[in-house]
């Protein structure tokens, strides 16, 4: 057992008050004089062995001893003693509180949320805060934020703690750990404490500069929730809507899955799921116009987490993909034309007639002022890379390519012969391309053969060689590349596949460029956002499940619904270990938040008891004095 520590050691100086106390005691002993006939008998009494026994001597000085005891107790209380926690005494304690969606899971019997349990522990820690200790509260869900500076101000800490609420987002440790790590440069932080329900990704990409103390509360009750919602086009106006329902409990739990369309229930299905057996349901939906859908889950019994029971998905209006291919790129035109649901502009002019397309396949002549979210340049080096890449008259070959890139999926390029040789300038490297926002998809023997660049909602692909001067159009991979680029355009235009938006950040929203909009959140709060030059609203935080209305004045421009859509959060499954880069940290449910326990109040109470005893002992009625 560790010896108790003292917060205010200087309080020991008050022990010097013992000197005046003893002096005053003896000065106070100006006993009332009483004349007696003779002292003979009283002298015998005083000389009696019983009177001089140790106990009687103690009783003789009981008042002084009680006063010394009282003073010592008060001084000890003033020194603010505390029992040191088993954990290493840390003056600076960052407490990382999990506020992810699973922390709002309630217990079936107590009705308390995980966050409330954590708050109770943290509240005790704050109450037991000793003078030289500082606590900083951090909250994290998919990202981290600091609630308070390192402080021992109980009121400020408690205020921040009480204001803390669980978000509707999945938990991620990386950001908040980096934030805490940043503080290690300023404060001597030895241990960082994480208070969580353990529902976190077990793999964390972070190198720990401090020891980590992960303490978790027990998981909530049984839960059923929607973990996926997406739609895939199955015809010109037909869609297949997929909804996955998962559960946290081992036993099968029933629920009714309802599909709502424009505020009306369209379909419903009974599902029975467990933590090992999720159910994926398909709803065929016809959508000529933009159609908002909502999936609602009505659990049959107790449901620990409510936020994962509603998901929104908006199906776009049915239309063919609008494509323009440069007239000189006959091979590409032939390859694209065979794709279904396509509106390929058939014109022999060098420039497109329209202004907006879904896909532009462009050669060195360009496409005029036409714009498309997906553009494929053939035989063109981006203008900002002209100084880095030179195309020489030489033969080149493919060295490697990014097989996982959607553009090159299922494409074999090993034996492609190319009659041009894009070459990196002397001193230039791939890093220079990446700095300018380009990703190399195909590497040639002298330089990049294909580049990709994402800019806002649009993506552009660049063949730095002309495909007609290669064997690529004769290879099986060529129509696959054409199909991939069409697929990318379809996805970009949300014409082939749409996925329900998850909480965190709203997906980019296409609006008028350079205009201000107001976003009304599910909580009723309003946010202001400015559309960029490209006419996109992006980076809008969406921490709550529900509908976000984008408003231009009082008019609703568009609505986007967000759902939790996290299998991890719905499962409420705690991880037993967190695996860091070089370390594994166990999460411990039984472990309580260990804190120093001050007991000055006990000493003060004891002193009060001594005072009461002294009063009773010396003031009790004893008859009349002679």
């Amino acid at each position, binding site marked *: 057992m560790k010896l108790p520590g003292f917060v205010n050691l200087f309080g020991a100086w008050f022990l010097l008050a013992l000197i005046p106390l003893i002096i005053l005691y003896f000065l106070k*002993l100006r*006993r*009332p*004089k*009483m*004349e*007696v*006939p*003779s*002292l*003979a*008998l*009283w*002298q*015998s*009494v*005083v000389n*009696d062995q*019983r*009177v001089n026994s140790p106990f*009687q001597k103690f*009783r*003789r*000085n*009981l008042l002084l001893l009680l006063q010394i005891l009282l003073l010592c107790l008060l001084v000890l209380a003033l020194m603010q003693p505390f029992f040191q926690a088993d954990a290493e005494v840390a003056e600076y304690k960052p407490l990382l509180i999990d506020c992810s969606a699973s922390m709002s899971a309630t217990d079936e019997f107590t009705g308390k949320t995980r966050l409330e349990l954590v708050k109770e522990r943290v509240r005790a820690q704050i109450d037991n805060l000793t003078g030289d200790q500082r606590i900083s509260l951090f909250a994290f869900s998919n990202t981290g934020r600091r609630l308070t500076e390192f402080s021992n101000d109980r009121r400020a800490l408690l205020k921040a703690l009480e204001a803390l609420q669980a978000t509707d987002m999945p938990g991620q440790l990386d950001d908040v750990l980096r934030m805490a790590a940043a503080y290690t440069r300023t404060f001597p932080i030895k241990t960082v404490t994480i208070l969580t329900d353990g529902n976190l990704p077990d793999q964390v990409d972070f190198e720990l500069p401090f020891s980590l103390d992960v303490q978790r509360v027990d998981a909530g009750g049984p839960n059923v929730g929607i973990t996926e919602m997406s739609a895939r086009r199955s015809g010109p106006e037909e869609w297949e809507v997929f909804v996955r329902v998962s559960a946290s409990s081992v036993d099968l739990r029933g629920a009714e899955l309802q599909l709502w369309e424009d505020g009306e229930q369209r379909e419903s299905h009974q599902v029975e799921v467990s933590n090992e057996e999720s159910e994926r349901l398909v709803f065929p939906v016809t959508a000529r116009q933009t159609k908002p859908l909502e999936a609602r889950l009505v659990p049959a019994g107790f449901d620990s987490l409510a936020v994962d029971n509603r998901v929104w998905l908006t199906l776009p209006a049915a239309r063919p993909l609008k494509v323009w291919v440069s007239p000189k790129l006959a091979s590409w035109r032939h390859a694209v034309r065979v794709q279904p649901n396509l509106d390929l502009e058939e014109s022999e002019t060098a420039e497109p007639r329209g202004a907006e397309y879904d896909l532009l396949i462009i050669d060195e002549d360009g496409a005029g002022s036409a714009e498309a979210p997906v553009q494929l340049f053939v035989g063109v080096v981006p203008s900002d890379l002209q100084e880095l890449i030179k195309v020489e008259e030489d033969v080149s070959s493919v060295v490697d390519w990014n097989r996982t890139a959607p553009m090159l999926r299922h494409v074999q390029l090993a034996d492609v012969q190319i009659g041009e040789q894009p070459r990196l300038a002397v001193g230039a490297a791939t890093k220079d391309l990446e700095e300018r926002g380009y990703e190399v998809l195909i590497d040639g023997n002298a330089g990049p053969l294909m580049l990709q660049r994402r800019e806002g909602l649009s993506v552009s692909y660049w063949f730095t060689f002309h495909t007609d001067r290669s064997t690529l159009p004769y290879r099986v991979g060529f129509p696959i590349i054409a199909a991939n680029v069409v697929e990318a355009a379809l996805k970009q235009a949300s014409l082939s596949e749409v996925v329900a938006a998850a909480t965190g950040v709203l997906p980019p929203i296409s609006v008028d460029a350079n205009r201000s909009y107001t976003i009304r959140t599910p909580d009723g709060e309003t946010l202001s956002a400015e559309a960029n030059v490209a006419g996109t609203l992006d980076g809008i935080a969406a921490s709550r499940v529900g509908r976000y209305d984008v408003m231009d004045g009082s008019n609703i421009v568009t609505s986007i619904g967000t759902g939790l859509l996290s299998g991890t959060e719905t499962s409420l499954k705690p991880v037993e270990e967190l695996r860091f880069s070089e370390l594994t940290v166990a999460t411990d449910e039984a472990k309580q938040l260990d804190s120093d326990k001050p007991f000055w109040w006990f000493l003060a109470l004891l002193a009060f008891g001594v005072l009461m005893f002294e009063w009773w002992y010396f003031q009790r009625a*004893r*008859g*009349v*004095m*002679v």
Partner: protein
Amino acid sequence: MSDTAPSQLTTLFDNSTLNQIERMRLKPNRRLTNRARGEHLSGKGGSSTDFADFRDYVAGDDLRYVDWNIFARLRRPYIKQFQHEEEMHVVLLVDASTSMLFADKMLRAKQLAAAFGIMGLQNVERVSAYAIHARQDQPWMLPPGAGRTRIRKLLKFLEGIEGGGNIPIEKAIETMLRFHRGRGVAIIISDFLTFGDVSRPLNLLYSAGLEVWGLQVLAESEIHPNVQGDLRFVDSETQETLDITNASELLNVYQDQRIWLQNALHSMCRSRQGRFMSVSSGMTLPTILFEHLCRQGWILR
């Protein structure tokens, strides 16, 4: 002092009490008498006219005391004995030190001394009185004397004692013995609260042919003190002080010590063929005389 009317013989008690006292006499354990003739019966055969007993004749006896009538019947000589009345000396020692000035101790001591003295004088004993005090302006001794005419002198002597000083009882007894002659009874009326050793003066009294009667007079506050808290006791005689803490806690020990002192004094007196009794000054004189002393056989009615 008593509220006795001026017509009374003494201020110490009223005449009715005096009348009762005059009919009483002392009853010593031993017959320590003087050769001088008195009214106190001697253990030895005497020459009075009152028959006492017979005894066998032994050679040398005065033939005048042979009972010839018995000799004629039994043919054996018996000597006829008569009661012999001798004078007994009654010494009264009255402790008049400062410690006796508390409550009614002094008054009760003087009353008792007067009563014992009157009993002695009424029975033609020699009575002397000594007052133990340190006052130079007051008499401290009444020389021995007998006869009823001495009663007034005795009462006057006792009434005149005011007391004071810190002469210990043992020292006073030694002083008294320097002046005293004669056998009899020494009645010491005191509180016996002394730091000294009382056994030595008692031995001296015993050796001097005096039967020791110790009569301890204590105030009610000495028998049952009611004290509490931290006190500084001041000795009334020596002005010495003694600090007592939590006095109420020591009362049991005090009682034990008081009883031990009584037992010790009783034992010392008994071992010298004497008597000892402790009385409270709160008791009335008739109560002490007619109940306690009579019952204990100190006096005869």
